């Protein structure tokens, strides 16, 4: 127990240490609020505002879409609504999808987009990220919803409620903290993923003005910048990583507060 905790903390501390050491030097206000100057990140001037905003658009857009799809699906997999067999098949399929490398999602999305004659765009990125996030979100939500005790549902049904009423007013409330964790888990994977949006979201030095414009993202900014031979630009990659870490931390804190608030009423 203590050893595993130590391992996890050491790994986390190591990553944070390296990212902060290398990235802090290039961190400045202009880094956050300006778009790149010098084209394609290769200049040493300007900032990565396009990637920050792009990543937020992508991750929040995809999270929103995923929640809209995952919640009904996770409920539909409960035994009130479907057979054991169908639910287990869906679980298997989702677990396989969960294990799929994200580059496969990217390639798949790319092929589909070419088929429809679409350019890489914010919309394409959001859709592919949604596909990537769905298995994680559905499976995690479904697990916590399954944990809601049968007795609690019995109580609700015994008051003369329908399945839908019980699902929405009782089961969802009871499972809410877990549902928030599921969203957080998927969000973390989505915002940090580079491969799936490599082809589908495209790349640009500007902030997108519509869903059909290409969009930059932090993971790809890190990827491109750290692949350059220029040391100053490589440092900027670490700065981008630092900002990404900070966003993930912030979202974590916010969702923890939400989770804590929603767990006030739940029954243990």
């Amino acid at each position, binding site marked *: 127990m203590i050893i595993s905790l130590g391992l996890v903390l050491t790994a986390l501390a190591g990553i944070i240490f390296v990212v902060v050491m290398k990235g802090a030097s290039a961190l400045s206000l202009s880094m956050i609020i300006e778009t790149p100057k010098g084209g394609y990140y290769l200049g040493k001037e300007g900032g990565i505002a396009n990637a920050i905003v792009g990543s937020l658009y992508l991750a929040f857009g995809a999270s929103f879409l995923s929640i809209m799809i995952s919640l009904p699906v996770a409920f539909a997999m409960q*035994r*009130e609504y479907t057979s*054991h067999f169908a639910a287990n098949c869906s679980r298997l399929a989702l677990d396989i999808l969960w294990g799929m490398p994200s580059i496969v999602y990217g390639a798949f999305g790319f092929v589909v987009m070419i088929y429809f004659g679409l350019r890489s765009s914010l919309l394409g990125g959001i859709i592919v990220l949604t596909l990537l996030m769905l298995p994680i979100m559905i499976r995690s939500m479904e697990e916590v919803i399954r944990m809601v*005790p*049968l*007795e*609690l*549902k*019995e*109580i*609700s*049904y*015994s*008051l*003369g*409620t*329908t399945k839908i*009423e019980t699902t929405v*007013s*009782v089961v969802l*409330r*009871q499972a809410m903290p877990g549902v928030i964790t599921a969203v957080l888990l998927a969000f973390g994977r989505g915002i940090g993923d580079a491969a799936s949006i490599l082809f589908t979201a495209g790349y640009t030095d500007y902030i997108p003005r519509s869903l059909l414009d290409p969009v930059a993202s932090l993971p790809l900014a890190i990827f491109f910048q750290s692949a350059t031979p220029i040391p100053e630009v490589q440092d900027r990659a670490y700065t981008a990583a630092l900002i990404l870490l900070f966003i993930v931390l912030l979202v974590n804190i916010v969702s923890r507060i939400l989770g804590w608030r929603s767990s*006030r*009423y*739940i*029954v*243990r």
Partner: protein
Amino acid sequence: MSHISLNHLTIAYGGHKVLQDISVDIPDHQIIAILGPSGCGKTTLLKSMNRLLDLHEDVKIEGNILIDGLNIYDSEADILALRKKVGFLSQRPYPLPMSIYDNIAFGPRIHRMKGQQVLRQIELLEKNNTMLGSFSGFNPQVDRSRKNSEMDYLVEYYLRLAGLWDEVKDRLHGPAARLSVGQQQRLALARALAVEPEVILADEPTSALDPVSAKLVEKQFKLLRTKYTIIVVTHILRQARRLADYVIFLYMGELIEHGPAESFFSSPLDERTQAYISGEIS
């Protein structure tokens, strides 16, 4: 009023028969104890009466249960109306994941009782108020101008009916999960009463409670029997003696004996009943 009668009821989980050929008429406005050792099918029998068994997998039910002359296992039976009419208290009380107030208001809200209907229920309650003499001092004026005042009244009424009002009146909007287990069980009682059932099924309602809370729940039951039919599952002989007007004795899935409590305890007919009452089998 509701009259419950079970006819040749046989219930099996998978291939295993839990209850065999149970036939009994359940009297109204009494406390009926379903008595018997653990694992004899008491809870199954209880849950069959508001079709909560439907939630379990692999349950096979033969025979029928008539409530007000209607077979509740008929394919066209209205399960929601049935469950509204037949309330349920579980062994371990589960508050709904919301505030104390919302726990009580949940049922009435689900059944779309608004404005007029709530007012009608309140009028009925006001008439019955005198019947349930326990709460002298309860005479709140329904302030019709205030928003939600009808619901406030209902919530207070049922919390008083369950004997919980004085303990929770200052924290109605706090989480119900913070109540003690004993309070939670009385909350569950208030919540069940709030949908105006005619029958209350209680599955060993005091087994998770401390003696003081258990006594409070029993006291409420005795008070409520004038208006409701209360069916209590218990394996505690002394509790059945204290509470019951009528006893149904199950043993190994069979109905052994049933009758008014007095004669059941004083002169049991079947030797298994005698053995159970004398403590030879448990």
